[in-house]
């Protein structure tokens, strides 16, 4: 049993933390929220040059990491500053699917991702699919050598900046069946693809993606036709490590900010941190963050293992993070009082980002039910 980081990972953590601290002040985060991509290209290039993107891929895929603990390490650091960089979309979801089922030509794109020159997005969720991975209503039909796609994809994060989209579509099977789902690698410039781009509460940007007779040839198909579910599930499991570690980083910074505030803010002639009611609640915050950290470790340790155990931990961790995230965001705002309600103070962005974690990749409710199905019932 050893919960320490390896020397390599420790070095990556130190370098990344320094880099992010330099690049992300509260003012910089706010400026990015107004920008057209929602993130900074320079910072992205900087992350690539530090090897941060490469750390998210295995050696076999051209990187030098890619294990669950590499993902957890990188994303916890991103979370600590509330960085809006779309690493989850481009590297974990986009790159992850390429690595899992791409052919040689498709896999060649991973090199560009690691260099920082290619952006991706996964267009999978739909307006009424509500986190259910197999519920795909977007259709694909063969037309001679081509495929033709029609449908509506909801809140596709990073779609506006993406060079390539991975789009899921159903060629066969019942609406929520795991078989019959195909994935296509589609250039963002393809005719029939319409994006309605908007800012997110968490920072970053997303788009509603409409596919109106989008015609692609067979070279766009990822893996076997109708057999993409397993790759989608694995990519989502790895993305869950990422988003939960991001949430953990957010929690750590929020705790530090709130503790500092309790020591500094004086009412009734003493720091409000001297009031027992706030001390006890802050102690609960600390306990829950330790639970969250253990849950992230559990998931990171099982994400590269066999499926049943992996998926059990996906739902356990995402459920716990959702519940704890809400508690910590709400408690930190409450303990700050009015100042915690303002856009100007840095807590706002972090707390909102933490709340929004529960709206991606399944909320606490969804994963509770899923955990019951997998592990309890």
């Amino acid at each position, binding site marked *: 049993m050893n919960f320490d980081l390896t020397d390599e990972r420790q070095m990556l953590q130190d370098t990344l933390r320094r880099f992010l601290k330099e690049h992300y002040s509260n003012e910089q985060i706010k400026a990015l*929220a107004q920008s057209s991509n929602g993130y900074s290209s320079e910072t992205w290039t900087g992350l690539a040059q530090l090897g941060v993107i490469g750390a998210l891929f295995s050696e076999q895929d051209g990187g030098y990491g890619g294990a669950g603990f590499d993902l957890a390490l990188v994303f916890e650091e991103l979370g600590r500053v509330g960085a809006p960089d779309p690493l989850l979309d481009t590297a974990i979801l986009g790159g992850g699917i390429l690595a899992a089922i791409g052919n040689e030509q498709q896999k060649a794109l991973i090199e560009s991702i690691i260099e920082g020159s290619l952006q991706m997005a996964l267009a999978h*969720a739909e*307006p*009424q699919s*509500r*986190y*259910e991975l197999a*519920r795909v209503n977007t259709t694909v039909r063969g037309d001679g050598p081509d495929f033709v796609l029609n449908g509506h994809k*909801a*809140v596709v994060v990073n779609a506006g900046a993406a060079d390539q989209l991975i789009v899921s579509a159903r060629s066969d099977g019942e*609406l*929520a069946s795991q078989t019959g789902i195909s994935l296509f690698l589609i250039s963002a410039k393809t005719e029939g693809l319409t994006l*309605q781009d*908007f*800012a*997110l*509460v*968490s920072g970053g940007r*997303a788009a*509603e993606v409409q596919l109106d007779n989008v015609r692609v040839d067979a070279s766009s198909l990822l893996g076997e036709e109708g057999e993409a579910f397993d790759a989608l599930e694995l990519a989502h499991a790895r993305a869950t490590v990422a988003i939960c570690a991001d949430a953990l980083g957010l929690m750590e910074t929020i705790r530090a900010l709130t503790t500092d505030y309790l020591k500094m803010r*004086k*009412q*009734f002639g003493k720091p*409000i941190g001297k*009031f027992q*009611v*706030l001390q006890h609640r802050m102690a609960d915050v600390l306990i829950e963050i330790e639970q969250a950290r253990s849950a992230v470790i559990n998931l990171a340790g099982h994400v590269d293992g066999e499926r049943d155990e992996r998926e059990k931990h996906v739902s356990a961790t995402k459920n716990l993070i959702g519940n704890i995230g*809400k508690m910590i965001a*709400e408690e930190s*705002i*409450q303990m700050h*009082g*009015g100042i*915690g*309600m*303002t*856009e*100007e103070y840095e807590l*706002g962005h972090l*707390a*909102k980002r933490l*709340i*929004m974690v*529960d*709206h*991606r990749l399944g*909320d606490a*409710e969804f994963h*509770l*039910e899923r955990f019951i199905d997998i592990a309890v019932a």
Partner: protein
Amino acid sequence: MDLNYTDEQLAFRQQVRVFLEAKLPKALSSKVKFGKTLTKSDHEQWHAILNEKGWLANNWPKAYGGTGWDAVHRHLFEDEMTRAHAPRIVPFGLAMFGPVLQEFGSSEQKDYYLPRILNGEHWWCQGYSEPGAGSDLASLKTTAVREGDHYIVNGQKTWTTLGQHANMIFCLVRTMKEGKPQEGISFLLIDMQSEGVSVEPIVLIDGEPEVNEVFFDNVKVPVANLVGEENKGWTYAKFLLTHERTNIAGVGFAAAGLESLKRIARTEQSKGRPLIENPHFAAKIARVEIDLMAMITTNLRVISRAAAGQAPGAESSMLKIKGSEVRQQINALTRSAVGCYAMPFVSEELERGSNTLPVGPDYAASVTGTYLNNRKLSIYGGSNEIQRTIISKAILEL
């Protein structure tokens, strides 16, 4: 013990319903229903309609142009207003300042200010909190120094809700530095157009500039604008706080929010079925509805005691805590209900004058903003921590 309203009360409720049906503009109720921010003229339009009917000052005695209703009638009125998605009556002049003036003001002040609250000429805002005086309000530092027949006011107020629309502010100011902090506070009325008054908006986490900072830089205020006696302002402030609490539970808002949550949960899908049929989600709705049902009766118990002439004391702290918690739970469930469509940032500030298309279903647009904005419910008007302290001291005598 009789849980039913009297025939007279029921007839009154019907009268309110008929009025709202006929007179509440659809453009306003639709904004309220979808959580849109009301403009100054929206508020003014609705106030004018209520004033024409004579129902604007529903907690004032008839002698001052009010309705003279008791607490039960006020409750019925507020409940019907909320159900109909009517804009809430802006409380600062009508619910807060008016009653203080009626109790402690001079007859000249009453004659001058009260009609102007009713006809909308004066929009009041509240100058209580300061950067260093929140929960500990008595530590406020804004000073008013007497020079001849004026006070010279210096300092800063904050969290001034809708101060951007106001032309008058009632302030707690320090007129004496000696003695206990509560003993040197006065209640002063300041014209916002006076030289030296400036207002800076504070944008909240939902992206909306709902509150403000108000700065006073050597502002000259006539001594005639002092309410009651100098250094007795704390007494008046406490009186005002009990009035601020008449509808503190916000049961009407909670009921409207619950109804909206159920409507959304009937439309949203979970695994191909309406979300409301999902037993886990339904259980969460049920829990908050059960809590609300009991709270409605707790509220009525306090109200009927008030109607019998017993001023609500620490009970209002109880209503504030339970009421804010129930509303916040409903807001959080509604946010969960809309799934991924809670994620888009919808800024009404940006929307105005732009042609951006809405993202996702129309009911989802304001859900995250409302959730974030209503975190204030457990912070303002004395945080829930302060309310618990009041309960433990005043009721439990701990």
